[in-house]
């Protein structure tokens, strides 16, 4: 066996082992603790779980490539809310009144373009000023959220388009529309990161920026493209979710950035960049959603759920660190 294969396997496989553990635990515990008669692993329940995973999952794919690239994006929650407003509000704009249901693709496009533009702005600032992405997107998180509140004050923005609702609630081959979007995004991002020049260079920049520059890679444009992708995905997530719900509160999407980062980190992507896997991020979002749903299933109240997820995150990362220590000769820092 090639050196490092076992530890790679442990790292890659760990999240799926964790998911299996969760399934077993909640199925067994559910037998004794659950108030409902339905089994936890009921097919309908699992399909619903996938659908509920979609909003965070779609953004998490973007966060994975941002983090592999060595950056972070804290503004995704605010971008999500702002794009949702653009979607719902543009459906009612008088200039599109003559389009009938033809307004739907126009509204979608507007929301997605907004996401791309907001991401591009983040990327451009990070590229041109050289300020750390953490700081830049901390600022834009506040700024974009400010725009959300400027738009409609504390009032929710609502519009229900029944054609859209039907589309969002549809099931094809058993899977909901949102699930299909998540799967499609996962596959597309996987190809992007594993088969294209952009993906290869993003890994290289995140792993060793100096060496990447020395190889003639232009770091800035790659970072900007990644920010545009995550902006687009935050918008796509909003579009998928709000097509169905039809109403956005100005506080919607708050803390999304943290949930998304939690899922990505749980999937094994390094905060320092250069390493991470799209498939494992998929596992990470599933694991978190399973945990929330499972804990609810066995009657845990909401406050406790967050506490448990927090503890598990730290425990998992501690375990990961122990597995990855190269040996006792490593510097104590």
């Amino acid at each position, binding site marked *: 066996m090639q*050196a490092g294969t076992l530890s790679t396997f442990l790292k890659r496989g760990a999240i799926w082992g964790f998911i299996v553990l969760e399934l077993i635990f909640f199925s067994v515990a559910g037998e004794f603790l659950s108030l409902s008669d339905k089994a936890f692993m009921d097919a309908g329940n699992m399909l619903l779980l996938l659908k509920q995973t979609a909003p965070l999952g779609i953004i998490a794919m973007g966060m994975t490539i941002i983090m592999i690239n060595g950056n972070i994006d804290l503004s995704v929650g605010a971008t999500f809310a702002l794009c949702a407003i653009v979607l719902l509000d543009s459906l009612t704009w008088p200039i599109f009144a003559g389009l009938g249901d033809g307004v739907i693709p126009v509204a979608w496009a507007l929301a997605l373009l907004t996401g791309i533009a907001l991401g591009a702005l983040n990327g451009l600032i990070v590229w041109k000023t050289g300020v750390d992405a953490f700081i830049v997107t901390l600022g834009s998180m506040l700024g974009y959220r400010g725009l959300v509140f400027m738009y409609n004050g504390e009032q929710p923005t609502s519009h229900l388009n029944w054609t859209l609702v039907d589309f969002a609630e549809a099931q094809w081959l058993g899977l909901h529309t949102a699930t299909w979007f998540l799967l499609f995004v996962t596959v597309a991002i996987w190809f992007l990161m594993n088969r*294209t020049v952009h993906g*290869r260079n993003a*890994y290289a920049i995140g*792993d060793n920026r100096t060496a990447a520059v*020395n*190889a003639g890679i232009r770091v800035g444009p790659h970072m900007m493209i990644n920010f545009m992708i995550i902006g687009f995905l935050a918008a796509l997530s909003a579009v998928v979710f709000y097509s169905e719900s039809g109403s956005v509160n100005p506080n919607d999407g708050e803390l999304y950035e943290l949930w998304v980062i939690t899922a990505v980190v749980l999937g094994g992507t390094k905060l320092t960049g*250069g390493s991470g896997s799209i498939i494992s991020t998929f596992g990470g979002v599933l694991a978190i959603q399973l945990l929330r749903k499972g804990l609810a299933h066995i009657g845990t109240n909401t406050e406790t759920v967050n506490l448990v997820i927090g503890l598990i995150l730290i425990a998992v990362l501690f375990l990961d660190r122990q597995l990855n220590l190269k040996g006792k000769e490593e510097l104590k820092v």
Partner: protein
Amino acid sequence: MIDRAPVLRLEHIVKTFPGVRALDDVSLSVLPGEVHALMGENGAGKSTLMKVLGGIYQPDAGQIVVDEKPVVMASPLEAKARGIVFIHQELSLAGELTVAENIYLGELPRKRFGLVDWDTLYSRTDAILEKLKVGFDARTLVGSLSIANQQMVEIARALTVDARAVIFDEPTASLTDAEKVVLFDVIEDLKAHGVGIIYISHRMEEIFRITDRITVLRDGTHQGTVNTAETDEEAVTQLMIGRKLDLSRNVSHHEIGDVALEVRGLSCGHLFKDISFEVYRGEVVGFYGLVGAGRTEIAETLFGLRDPSDGKILLDGKEVRIASPAEAIARGISLVPEDRKGQGLILGMNCRDNITLPQIDDLKAGPFVDEGSEIAIFDKYRDRLDIRTPGWKQLVGNLSGGNQQKIVIGKWLAMHPSVLILDEPTRGIDVGSKSEIHNLIRELAAQGYAVIVISSEMPEVLHVSDRIIAMYCGRIMRTFTSDEVNEENLIQAISGIGTENGNSTA
């Protein structure tokens, strides 16, 4: 001079590392009030000896005697407690803290409840600074001081313990002439207080100006200790080299082509000034000098990592401006950097991806990377450079230093450059791979590449170069042809002895 008991004696020290006898029966004694120079080429064992003294390495045999008492230096802390103080070449100060806080870092005077006793801290510090006659006070932020003054802070730190011996490691490497004078005054002052001083430097002029005795190491052995007043530069150089040109200089004779790279009056701030040279196709030009002589900075400028403040770069006779590595690569300049792991490789990536990194943009099949042609390129350079790896999937982080370096070289050969710059191409590489890389460098020249080799190892530059450019403090001191160079005149040129002869070429 033997009328006083030495403050410090290292007796018959032996230290071996796997495969290397780094120190073989080395002895050194330092008298109170003496400045004792420790000299030798890179790799002669100076640092190893000092690490033994500092408690970082334990010797395999021999003993350390401080004030006539044999001691075991179990740790750096113990060395400090016994009054052995090191002033390192690389300063280790916290720039955002005051001078006083840096000096007493880790042992700040305290009041009740663990509060810092600022009054005592500042008054103690000012007392020390007064002794050193420096122009700043205890409350100054270290980050705002010049390098020389930061060195003074390190020295002040040394004075907080009752120093018996102070070791200076290349202290003048980053000092201006005026700053050196201040440093030498401090050393005189330490001498006057009976402190023993070990002074490590390559710079002959300084050695002869301030030291009392000189000990020379070569290949881990003690070559002799002489009184400075009774010797001269030539004799010391002879001791350091120990042999008269017993190295076969492997300058195979092949056709030298046209000028590939021409540099005229290139300057970059204080890093290097008025650099002019040219490199012909089929030629290896070696750059030799001390650390900090500006060689790496010239390479970085040619590769677009630094903007020159003055001067011209010409490729194939045409003046070019190189603003980024991407442009340098596009114009056919490649750089194998000094720090292989930090600057040259993506350690978390496999061998194939590292080799094709600069050119994957040209290896596309539709939207995706054409992995087939990537593997073909990897196979070609694995065979050509004899890279030993189980396969292209191996992460470069798991390869040996020699094979890692071959990956970096292979990466650039795959780009078919016209000018190849190698900065310390064999640093940290085992002997076998080293000679393979040397042969490769000669071979590349024979194939018509214009090659620049920067090295701090004299045998290496002598071995591979057709011409050698000797640098000292950011300037070209002399350009040697392979016929006129010898170890003696080369050492003298890079130590700042002799006349400036910047533009002479073969």
